[in-house]
Structure formats: C-alpha cells, structure tokens
C-alpha cells in the first residue's frame, strides 16, 4: 500500500508568523464597576427585595385597611418594636432551639438508616419502603398522635420535626451514595479503606452535593413544620415560639405584629439559605468543582 494518495496535489504550503500580543487592542481587561456589581448575586437579590417591598407599600397604602393588610412600614415598625422589647427575639430563640434539636436528631436518624442501607441489601429495601411510606405523610398529620405520646411540650414538636427531616435527608444521602462513580469507589478501596473510614473519607465527600440538597430540603421541611406545630398547639414550654407569637397577636388583632412574626420566619429562612448553606456550598461542592 502506498501513501502517495494523502500528499496534497501541487498546492503551496502556507507558513505564517503569529503577531506579537502587544499588537492586539485587548488581551485581558478588567470588567467595569457596573459589570462587577451586577455579578454579585446577593446584590441582585437585594435589589429584587427592595422592589417587592415598594410594591407591598404602594398596594397596602391604596387598600388603606391595616386590619387586613398593614403597610410595609408599619410591619417593619412592629418588627423593630418586637425586637427592641425582646419578645420577638425571645420567641425566635425558643423556636430555633427546638428546631436545632429536632434537626440534629433527624440527621442522626437518617445517618444510621443510610448506613444500614448501604451496607446491606435488606437495609436498602427497608429504607426504600419506609421512605415511600412516610415521605408523603405530612408531619403535621402526626401531631395529634405525637401529643398523645409525648404530651404537650417540646418532645412532641421534636418528634414531628424528626419525621419531616429524616426521610428527605435519608433519601438524598442514599441516592448520592449510589451515584458515586465506580472509579472513585475503586480508588478508595485501593488505598485499603474499608467500613466506616471508607464511608466517611470517600462516600460522604463524593456524595456531598446530594447530601447538601437533602439537608436543605430537610431544613425547610423542619422550619415550616415547627411554625405550623406551634400555631396548632400554641404554648409548649411556657414561653412559646414564633408560631405562637403569630397566633397570639392574631387573637389580639395586632395585625402588624402578625406580619412582623411572618416576616421574622421569612428572614430567618433567608439567612439560613443564603448565608449558612451558601457558605457551606462555596467551601465544599463549588470549590471542588462538583457543582457550578
């Protein structure tokens, strides 16, 4: 076989020198200040918040019925007042304390359940079965039962929070473990890792994007379950939380305070999502290139 067929026919070769980079107008140029400002996600979101607040204010003033829909201004006044006299702050702390207890307990249960699920086949079946049974069951629906079991108090709220966190976290963690690439698994075993060190040092970091999603969903479920539970049976351990604050003020027709309570619920949600989880994301999955 000859290779002559590949040789091009009679056309001349073309050779060029690349131009030195100084000859170009721009090789690399810093972005303008406006471009840099609009690149900050937090600022863009803040701008949206301002727009929403303005719409609220304008609508409420037109409606002019503080019993139905107080203005943004009066809500903020009630909010500031609530914080200055300490009631709103105390209620938030009470709610958050209960939340943290329930959330931590829920994650611990999920960790145990997932650990069993990845080590044994029957454990996997158990996890899948339990998740499909209990995940669709609203936590609040368990509240009456929880009251009978644990009495009127923190215990029954923590029970429903565990229920709302457990399934979301377990499901996401398990599916995260399943999607860890086979190569990474083999690498981990190549190092001689087995059992718990293998799970902690290879599987958990490799599945971290899913685990984080589970934690976020679990947090949101827990927060709304908590507020709802407090609304339903009010005072739990003497002081009561944010849900109770809302309920109490509704009874007294202190509508701006009701809005301030709701506002606090939202603000805490925003902070957890955009500060705490965002920071964790930045320092882990984004830094590692597992998520863009």
């Amino acid at each position: 076989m000859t290779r002559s067929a590949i040789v091009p026919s009679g056309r001349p070769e073309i050779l060029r020198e690349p131009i030195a980079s100084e000859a170009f107008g721009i090789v690399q140029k810093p972005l303008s200040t406006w471009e840099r400002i609009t690149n900050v996600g937090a600022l863009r979101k803040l701008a949206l918040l301002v727009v929403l607040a303005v719409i609220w204010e304008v609508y409420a003033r037109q409606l002019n019925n503080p019993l139905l829909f107080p203005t943004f201004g009066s809500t903020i006044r009630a909010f500031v007042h609530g914080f200055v006299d300490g009631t709103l702050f105390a209620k938030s702390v009470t709610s958050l304390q209960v939340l943290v207890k329930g959330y931590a307990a829920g994650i611990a249960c999920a960790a145990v359940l997932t650990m069993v699920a990845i080590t044994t086949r029957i454990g996997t079946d158990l996890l899948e079965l339990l998740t499909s049974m209990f995940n669709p069951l609203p936590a609040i629906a368990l509240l009456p039962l929880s009251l009978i079991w644990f009495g009127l108090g923190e215990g029954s709220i923590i029970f429903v929070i565990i229920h709302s966190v457990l399934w979301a976290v377990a499901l996401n963690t398990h599916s995260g473990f399943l999607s860890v690439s086979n190569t990474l698994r083999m690498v981990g075993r190549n190092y001689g890792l087995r059992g718990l060190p293998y799970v902690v040092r290879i599987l958990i970091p490799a599945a971290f994007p899913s685990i984080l999603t589970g934690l976020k969903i679990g947090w949101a479920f827990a927060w709304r379950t908590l507020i709802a539970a407090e609304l339903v049976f009010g005072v739990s351990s003497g002081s009561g939380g944010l849900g109770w604050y809302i309920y109490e003020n509704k009874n007294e027709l202190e509508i701006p305070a009701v809005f301030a309570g709701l506002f606090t619920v939202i603000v805490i949600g925003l902070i957890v999502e955009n500060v705490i989880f965002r920071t964790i994301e930045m320092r882990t999955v984004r830094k590692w290139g597992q998520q863009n």
Partner: protein
Amino acid sequence: MASTLKTATHDGPLLEVRGVTLQYKTKDHLVTATYRVDFDVYNSDRFVLLGPSGCGKSTLLKAVGGYMPPVEGEIRLKGEVVRRPGPDRMMVFQEFDQLLPWRTVKENVMFPLRTGGRLSRRAAEAKAMEYIAKVNLSKFADSYPHTLSGGMKQRVAIARGMAMEPAILLMDEPFAALDALTRRKMQDELLSLWEGTRFTVLFVTHSIPEAIKIGSRILLLSPHPGQVKAEIESLPASADGATVSALEKRIHSMLFADTIEGGTE
C-alpha cells in the same frame, strides 16, 4: 530510588498468575472473561497486557488489583495470595475522575500516604511534593482536580501511584482517553520516570505501538474469553523504525490471524 527493592526477600517472580479463570455476571449472563491465564512478572518489568477489546485484559488487571476473586487458579504477589485491594498494588485508571475532587493535587497524592498512619503529615507532604515534581506539576500542587486538563490529571494519578512506592503499579489504559499528542508525551514521560526509579508496572493497552513503546515484555491475549496467545520481548527504545514496524506487523498477525483467514481486509 530503592522503592522496588523491597521485594529482595522473595525469590522468583514478583507477581505470579497461575491458571486464572475470571467470570463476571451481567444482568442475564455469566461471562467468562479470561480462561486459565498464566504469566509471571519480575522486578522492574514493564509488563504489558495487550489484546483486542473483549480479551479480558482490564478484568485481569482488576483481579490482580484484588477487586475480583478468580474462579479458578490463583494470583500471588511476592508469594502471598491476592485477596483484596490494597495499597501495595496502586492502580492508575483510564478515567479522569479517579482523583478525589475534594482534595488538591498535593492532598490527593498525600491521601493514601496518610491513611492508616503510614507516614507523618510532614513526611507525606515531602514525599508527595517530590513525586509531584517528578511529573512536573509543582506549580499546580494547590489546585483542585477540576481545574486541570485530562493529561495533568493522569499525571497526578501516576504521581499518586508512584509516591506509594507499591510493589507493582497497575495501569489500566491510563492514556487511552487523551489526545494523540498528549498521549505520546505521557508515554515518553512514563519511560523517563521508569528510568529514574525502575518500578514494576503492569500496563493494559489495546494499542500495539503503545505496547511496543511502553513494554519490556508483552503478553498477547485472544478474545472471548481471554487466553494467552504469546508472551514476547519488546524492543529497546533505540530500535529503528523498520524493526519496530516489523514487530508491529508480527504482533498484528498473531492477534488477528483468525480474522485475516476469514478473507476480508
């Protein structure tokens, strides 16, 4: 430098593969990947497993790695039967995702050195940097894997494997996913690394030129299931083009003798 001399206490071949039959299950079949394969790898060998796809060469490498028990026969490393994966047989995989994404280049190389408390932090770091320098990545020691190119990732994986100073380095088509230019460069680099430390390597490939270039000894496997067809000496790097292409032709005809008889070409 003396990394591979740990084997001095054991006489005979470093790795003995005796009558190894490997089978794996797919969803609805039991597949025999290799049938009664025998070969010996000695110290400082660059031993290449060569064959067309479906000859079970990667499966064989996984069995040596300890990921898969043979149904028949046995694999011995320094006289000890291989039962499970371990850091005395470091693997370099074909895939670019073999580095831990949550660790920097340096931490990736250090990780196996540190697990099980083999080395102190300081010693592991020094050793990691030494091998990262060998693969010319010192500048990228603090980068995360996702910022590196495919070739650089493979170099980190090689550095990680070598830093452990394993009894044998197992390489599963490590350059197959690279572009042709990078691949040639990586082959040259691997050879010069070998010149420096004379580590033992078991290398899987389906490319005949790569086998001749990388290997000092080549095992030819036939497909479905994999059986040993021949075990031949490769050529020194100084061999001229004509000799190399003669060997290429010879290997080609040995591997594909059956298909050529079939008539088409």
